[in-house]
């Protein structure tokens, strides 16, 4: 029954897309369409929540659409229900945000028809139960998001972003197509139920893993397949950026989990090595890229890459434990990864909403043209601060909980017998810790340069607070971040059916633990109580404030800032984003990006200003993609000659093709 509700909501979203094409582009219509999307997402969310919390069995449905002898199989099991919750929660908040934000959209006719279609496609990917439906929905999701990325097509960098996105999405779909083809086998058993029942050889499993990593990984943003992400995510309108970063990457993670944990069968032990190496590299590279950016949305997009790395570290650990028959440790790692999926969708969407609010209020995405917004946009600044604190894994918010659980899973790894894993996992743990610390630095920069300090341009000085709908969406997610940080036991217990289904074990029930703490393995080993930590911090802070204000002084006086005797009213002298990251750029960036800072000082007497040149090179692009593009261009040039053959040469080509086919036919039979 819940599956039919979910499908009805998806159909409603598609109907809304059709309505949007037909109707005009007035603001009121836009609001109604976004409101309709919000309602559909809300109903679907309720249905999926009901299914997950009831721990009901999977529901299936077969519709006579699509390929005649295959039909369309759809299934709602625990994993689909969880990811559907993530998708619908993100869709609900994004639609709520868009009711306010979409009012000053410059090209609503190019955004409105594709937005509900995008939401419907993501829901359909998650409930698909055969390869055809899955791939159809996946491509539909890519295409509708591509249309949204190039909605503002007058901006040339958006067009380039759309082009790169389309190419990478095509490569990903090709890889997934091959993966499903290998899984379906020579008889063409495309339905997931048939694939599960079959047995794959180890070699086939390896190929499927690699193809799944390329296909789903490129959509999720694993290094080195991440290059489209920081181009495409910022180019789309802000509500769509939030959906792409917060939700679509999670749909890609769903695809990976479905293929590798469900369809392929027993994992080989060394698969986890591949996943862990890629995930560790992704985590560190993602946050270092983010630190080099001063465009707020591009920073957030690169940071998504880091968090996807953290999710894949959890998944890699779960694969390692599962392959070595340690189900409880696997359940811990898997639950940590899924919890991070949920948490990341919350705080990344919140941060994108905030950057959208800033963009709408000031017209600027570049942090170095902003500043002092905490005075002009106080509520946005507050919720953005909650998002920054959550993503930097500070207790008592939710980012810390999933990071803590992943670290606990790392601490269980010495029991693994493989030498390679014994040497790899401590390094991966250190990389995880390093990326957490660098993420905190990144968000101190993002928040401090954008919201704190003094305004650097008139646009920032004249900003106004955003509208109520956008604020409501942001406050909803900020509140959810706090709740997920204080009461993590509820969320962990809700994930038990998912890990039961895919790993065969679950984490110990958290509800009975004292004072709502979480106990991942055993109480003697480790526990964490978010609620108590929150109460202690709030309590001690208020006690200190009360004691000092009563017993000591509470007077206050305003005065100019300390300027060492040199009066300075130019806001350009405060730290900018580039200067804030200069120490980190010098320490890490000089190796990873060949970053060079060069000061060009004119000679004394020359009145030209001094210049600081910062050069940061994207080595992945230079060493992987640029040569690939060159090779393809070269091949295309050579093959171009085929267009200019004479009639006799064309006839020769056709004749030789016919002869070759006949020879093959003769030899084969």
């Amino acid at each position, binding site marked *: 029954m819940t599956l039919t509700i979910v499908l009805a909501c998806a159909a409603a979203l598609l109907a809304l897309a059709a309505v949007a094409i037909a109707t005009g582009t007035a603001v009121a219509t836009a609001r109604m369409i976004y409101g309709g999307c919000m309602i559909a997402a809300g109903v679907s969310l309720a249905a999926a929540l009901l299914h997950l919390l009831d721990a009901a069995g999977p529901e299936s449905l077969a519709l006579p659409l699509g390929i005649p002898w295959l039909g369309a199989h759809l299934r709602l099991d625990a994993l689909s229900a969880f990811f559907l919750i993530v998708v619908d929660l993100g869709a609900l908040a994004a639609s709520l945000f868009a009711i306010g934000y979409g009012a000053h959209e410059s090209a609503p006719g190019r955004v409105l028809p594709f937005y509900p279609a995008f939401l419907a496609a993501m829901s359909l990917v998650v409930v698909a139960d055969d390869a055809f439906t899955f791939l159809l929905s996946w491509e539909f999701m890519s295409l509708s998001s591509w249309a949204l990325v190039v909605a503002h097509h007058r901006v040339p960098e958006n067009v380039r972003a759309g082009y790169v996105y389309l190419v990478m999405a095509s490569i990903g779909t090709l890889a997934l197509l091959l993966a499903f083809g290998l899984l379906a086998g020579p008889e063409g058993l495309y339905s997931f139920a048939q694939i599960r029942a079959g047995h794959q050889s180890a070699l086939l499993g390896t190929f499927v893993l690699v193809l799944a990593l390329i296909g789903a990984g490129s959509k999720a943003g694993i290094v080195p397949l991440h290059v489209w992400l920081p181009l495409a995510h910022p180019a789309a309108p802000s509500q769509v950026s939030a959906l792409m970063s917060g939700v679509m990457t999670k749909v890609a993670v769903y695809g990976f989990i479905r293929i590798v944990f469900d369809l392929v069968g027993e994992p080989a032990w060394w698969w986890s090595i591949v996943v862990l190496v890629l995930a560790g590299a992704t985590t560190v590279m993602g946050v270092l890229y983010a630190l080099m950016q001063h465009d707020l949305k591009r920073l957030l997009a690169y940071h998504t890459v880091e968090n996807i790395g953290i999710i894949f570290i959890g998944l890699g650990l779960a694969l390692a434990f599962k392959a070595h028959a340690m189900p409880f440790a696997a359940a811990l790692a898997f639950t940590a990864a899924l919890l991070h999926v949920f948490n990341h969708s919350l705080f990344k969407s919140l941060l994108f909403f905030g950057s959208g609010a800033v963009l709408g209020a000031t017209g600027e995405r570049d942090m170095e043209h902003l500043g002092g917004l905490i005075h002009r946009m106080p509520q946005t600044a507050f919720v953005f601060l909650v998002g920054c604190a959550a993503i930097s894994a500070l207790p008592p918010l939710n980012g810390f909980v999933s990071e803590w659980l992943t670290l606990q899973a790392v601490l269980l790894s010495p029991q693994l017998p493989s030498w390679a894993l014994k040497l790899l996992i401590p390094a991966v743990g250190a990389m995880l810790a390093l990326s957490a610390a660098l993420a905190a630095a990144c968000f101190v920069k993002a928040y401090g340069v954008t919201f*704190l300090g003094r305004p650097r341009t008139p646009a920032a000085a004249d900003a106004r607070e955003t509208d109520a709908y956008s604020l409501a969406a942001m406050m909803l997610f900020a509140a959810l971040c706090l709740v997920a940080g204080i009461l993590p036991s509820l969320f962990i217990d809700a994930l038990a059916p998912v890990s039961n289904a895919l790993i065969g074990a679950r984490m110990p029930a958290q509800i009975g633990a004292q004072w709502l703490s979480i106990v991942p393995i055993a109480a003697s*080993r480790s526990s964490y109580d978010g609620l108590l930590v929150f109460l202690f911090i709030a309590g001690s802070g208020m006690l200190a404030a009360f004691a000092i204000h009563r017993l000591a*002084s509470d007077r206050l006086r305003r005065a100019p800032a300390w300027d060492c005797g040199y009066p300075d009213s130019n806001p350009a002298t*405060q730290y900018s984003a580039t*200067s804030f990251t200069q120490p980190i750029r010098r320490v890490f960036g000089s190796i990873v990006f060949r970053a060079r800072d060069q000061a060009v000082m004119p000679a004394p007497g020359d009145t030209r200003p001094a210049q600081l040149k910062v050069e940061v090179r994207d080595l992945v692009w230079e060493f992987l993609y640029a040569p690939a593009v060159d090779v393809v261009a070269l091949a295309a040039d050579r093959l171009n000659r085929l267009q200019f053959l004479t009639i006799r040469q064309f006839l020769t080509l056709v004749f030789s093709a016919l002869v070759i086919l006949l020879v093959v036919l003769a030899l084969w039979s």
Partner: protein
Amino acid sequence: MVLIRDLAIQGAQMFLVLLLAPLFTGFVRKVKARLLRRRGPPLIQPYRDLIRLMRKEVVLAENASWLFRVIPYLVFAATWVAASLVPTFRTGLLFSWSADLIAIIALLGSGRFFLALAGLDVGTAFGGIGSSREMMIASLAEPAMIVIVFTLALIAGSTQLSTIAAFMTSPAVGLRVSLALALFALIMVAVAENGRIPIDNPATHLELTMVHEAMVLEYSGRHLALIELAASLKLILYVSLIICLFAPWGIEAAGADFPALALGGAGYVGKLAIGSFLLALFETSIAKMRVFRVPQFLGFALMLGLLATLLRFVSASF
């Protein structure tokens, strides 16, 4: 009855570290002064400084925001909560299960996050220089601390600090290579995190040599008092951490009675005195590093911690 007693012990621990923190700072300054052949300020001078600051009026920059005013309380609260969970004279603290060692480090990290934001709030170059350098130091010190926690957790079988401390007092611990490496790395990280020489000079007021002092340059009055108290608490937290992990003799177990606890408390104060003397000696005998030597220093600590973790992964007898 047991609950009341445990609650009293936890409360006593909280207030003990709060009261001892300025005394510890004062003792370090006195020893440093004596080593430099000065008389030095009296031992209770930090208390006098704090009371004087709290009574003064706060002078706030014109464009400082509400966040600037709230941050001192946040930083103090986070550091105090973290410090209350480190066993000083008794293990098995009542609320030790609510935050393990990773959570304690993350609490200190959140204090640092907000302090760095405070540095950027007023919009002058001084705060920026402090915040950016502090985040660079943190980006290496925090992972080094986490790999040290890995080593300790792999030896003791838990990340709960009370459990690790109890394990260290038991005879099962032995002399382990990874513990030696972890101790070395922990001392390096503690020096870096507390902004002592050779990383940062806690007594300087030249902006180009400051890290912590530059971030809090704009604070005055009660706000500055809270931040200084939080910095002293952080220092005593790290020293107590090193004591309870590597010199745990005299820390009482959970069921001890009052005379034993008093003895444990006296032992703790004695160990603090030795620790402060060693810290002062260390600070007086080496020079401050230039800023871009600090990442190499902390990278070395990270490598040592990683090596210790690797050794524990490879064999249980390391």
